[in-house]
């Protein structure tokens, strides 16, 4: 453990995976909140209002930890990956700046109103704040996925020498190169960003839906807060079913995109070592040394069929890449297959539940509800596994060089039959690490993160459990506390488009 590169990779993997427990939850939950707060505003049904309050509290908890662990990510680009920061700053930076200005401020500003403003603002303002927080979290996901996608399929930039006083800057005999932006929208809409963004969002919706279903199922099994739990479960099931069905479709198109731009990565996903018709492996243990997948169960020609609609078309295997350009296979293969297996599981599970809902007996199927209590862990694992596959599969590159192709779009091969990347056009992970940071420093910071994240996780579980045990409050109990002060009431009233009687009726409903 004396390699700062390996240690920095471990630290980044650890901190990003921990961070990524929370954003999918907050993005998924924010849409649930918009729905609940909106329905409560429209119908005046106190059950919606009490559900909105319950989920807002849980949302805020996740959000706070998401922000705190998110700061770490931004710092780590500079602390551990300074060479990378110098290389991509010009391109990556504008996305990050846009994220900061458009997304972070929107989220944290309105989150305050969302969480603390129940008695300080009227219901419309509260609903507006909910929408703004949801919008902020969506913005945030857009910019960060755009920046990541640019590293996978760079576009809209050129690689040029850094100038100092008008002349190329030479360090240790070599000109320092960096990526500079040429076309902002080509960078934003690079070949993989839309597909990846859609897939990330679907992952977030699955996460949010399964999280709500898990807690609701637990209440149903314990026979507590029945009306609340049934309503939450039904809404989340609809969302979860649609998202689960959409995931494989979006995944399919994304895999095609990956093959087009990063064929080595798809070969690693599928354990496809030798160029030729591709089988779709369902299970196996890849062995890079022997260049084969052991104990494999596969659909012959399945991969070729999914990519080209034809079972015999050859698919580029890892043998087309020089050993130093090949990604590791075991981790991408395992995490990719885990994600797909879980995704299929979500489809089966949500369709089964929808079937019982249609038959009217869903809430009596205790075995199914028990599965839903724990299925949220599967959603967490699927989100994590997808990212692990995407990020390990793009190694050894931190910024992927473009695949060289001829005029017909076929990859250019050298005399040995290898794909020849223009290394200058990309950046290897090994070259991206901070040169001045020592292994000892990274060991210390890993220990520090281990400590504080263990604390965060412990307290998160503890508080979440506490909130779930306490459950949603019935609103009639706190209707008095909720009523805005004299001034607030006046503002709310003049702000309403409805008649005074409409407002009064609502007030009675609460009371």
């Amino acid at each position: 453990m004396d390699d700062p590169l390996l240690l920095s990779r471990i630290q980044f993997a650890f901190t990003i995976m921990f961070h990524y427990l929370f954003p999918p939850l907050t993005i998924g939950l924010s849409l649930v909140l918009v729905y609940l707060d909106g329905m409560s505003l429209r119908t005046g049904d106190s059950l919606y209002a009490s559900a909105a309050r319950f989920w807002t509290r849980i949302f805020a908890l996740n959000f706070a930890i998401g922000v705190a662990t998110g700061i770490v990510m931004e710092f780590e680009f500079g602390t551990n990956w300074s060479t990378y920061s110098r290389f991509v700053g010009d391109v990556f930076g504008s996305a990050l700046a846009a994220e900061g200005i458009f997304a972070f401020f929107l989220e944290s500003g309105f989150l305050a109103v969302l969480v603390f403003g129940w008695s300080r603002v009227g219901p419309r303002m509260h609903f507006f704040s909910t929408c703004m927080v949801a919008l902020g979290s969506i913005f945030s996901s857009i910019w960060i996925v755009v920046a990541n996608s640019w590293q996978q399929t760079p576009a809209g930039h050129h690689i040029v020498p850094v100038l100092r006083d008008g002349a190329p800057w030479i360090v240790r005999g070599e000109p320092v190169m960096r990526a500079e932006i040429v076309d902002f929208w080509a960078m934003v809409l690079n070949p993989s960003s839309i597909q990846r963004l859609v897939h990330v969002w679907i992952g977030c919706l699955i996460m949010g839906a399964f999280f709500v279903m898990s807690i609701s199922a637990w209440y149903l099994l314990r026979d507590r807060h029945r009306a609340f739990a049934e309503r939450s479960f039904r809404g989340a099931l609809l969302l979860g079913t649609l998202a689960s069905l959409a995931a494989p479709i979006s995944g399919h198109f994304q895999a095609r995109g990956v093959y087009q731009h990063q064929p080595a990565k798809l070969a690693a996903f599928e354990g496809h070592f030798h160029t030729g018709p591709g089988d779709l492996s369902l299970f196996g243990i890849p062995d890079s040394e022997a260049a084969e997948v052991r104990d494999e169960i596969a659909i012959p020609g399945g991969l070729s069929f999914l990519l080209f609609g034809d079972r015999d078309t050859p698919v580029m295997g890892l043998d087309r890449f020089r050993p130093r350009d090949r990604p590791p296979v075991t981790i991408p293969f395992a995490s990719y297959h885990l994600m797909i297996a879980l995704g299929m599981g979500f489809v089966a599970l949500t369709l089964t539940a929808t079937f019982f809902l249609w038959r009217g007996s869903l809430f009596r199927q205790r075995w199914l509800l028990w599965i839903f209590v724990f299925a949220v862990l599967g959603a967490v694992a699927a989100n994590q596994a997808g990212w692990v596959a995407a990020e390990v599969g793009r190694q050894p590159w931190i910024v992927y060089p473009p695949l060289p192709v001829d005029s017909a779009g076929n990859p250019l091969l050298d005399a040995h039959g290898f794909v020849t990347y223009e290394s200058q056009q990309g950046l290897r992970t090994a070259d991206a690490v901070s040169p001045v940071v020592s292994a000892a420093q990274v060991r210390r910071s890993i220990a520090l993160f281990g400590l504080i994240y263990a604390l965060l996780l412990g307290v998160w579980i503890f508080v979440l459990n506490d909130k779930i045990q306490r459950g949603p409050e019935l609103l009639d109990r706190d209707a008095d506390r909720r009523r805005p002060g004299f001034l607030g009431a006046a503002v709310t009233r003049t702000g309403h488009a409805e008649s005074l009687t409409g407002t009064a009726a609502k007030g009675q409903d609460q009371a």
Partner: protein
Amino acid sequence: MSELLPVVWFGLLGLLLAGYAVLDGFDLGVGMMHLFVARDDLERRMVINSIGPLWDGNEVWLVTFGGALFAAFPEAYATVFSGFYDALMLLIFALIFRAVSIEFRSKRHTRWWRRAWDVGLALGSFQVALLAGIAVGNVIQGVPIASGGDYAGRLQDQLGTYPILVGVLTVTLFAMHGAIYLYLKTEGDLQERTHRWMWRSFGIFLVCFMLTTIYTLVEVPGAVANFQHHPVLWAVPVLNVLAIANIPRALFLERPGYAFASSCCTVVALVFLLGAALYPNLVISSPYADRSLTLWNAASSPKTLGIMLVIALIGMPLVISYSGMVYWTFRGKVELDEHSY
């Protein structure tokens, strides 16, 4: 125009940093002062809830400052962040620990639980202010830089007399700023006690300010060079002193809002003073001055700076208007309700 863009971004980064220092400054200060001013749990909750809905949004200014530095001056971002590795890791640790403390102290009613998080909040706030100040001190003083632009010093080099002095100054500045804020937000006994601490923290800040000023004038000549070449810049320290002098005046007149405005101006003036001393450098190289990272050699391309300027021109008015809206929503004295910490 393309020559001007790095200057514009230097100014905008200054604004972001000033925004951060003014806003998170008071909540860091409140985080430090709460151990002294609050007597029982109710008072402590009043104190913490005075910053409760705001601290998270305030920290976003730091995140955005970091992002904008990355985007506008990637060379400076890379050098500073990798060079100050340990300090920044401790800063992150403190920021997270502070957030954890605020979020979680209210979740249990037992005495030891609340006490532990109270101390955590105070220490975390103190550590953030101290480390931020130490970093600023190093930047003003200059740091060793290698020919490739990387930091070339050791960890212990970062803990010189001057950086620590600036660190302590930052702690006292935020403590005073936080105490005045707290005075605005509280009533009764708690406010009485805050009133005493407001005076004390002002006195300590004043002493540190004078010490730092003298030390800078005597020992850090590089920081004064710009003022000798451009006498008009003296306006910044003059305004700074006026703002500081106005704090006790406003306190005497019993106009705490006016005092808080003055202390905001003090914080802003100090950030501008930093900018005036640094310009046109971002990181001053010492001893090899030609290796300094300047506005020109550390900047992104004019194209990127232009795009970012468009983003900032669209985004900043929005940020300022809804930040204003949030502050307006939570105006007035602290009141506890069921959603409070």
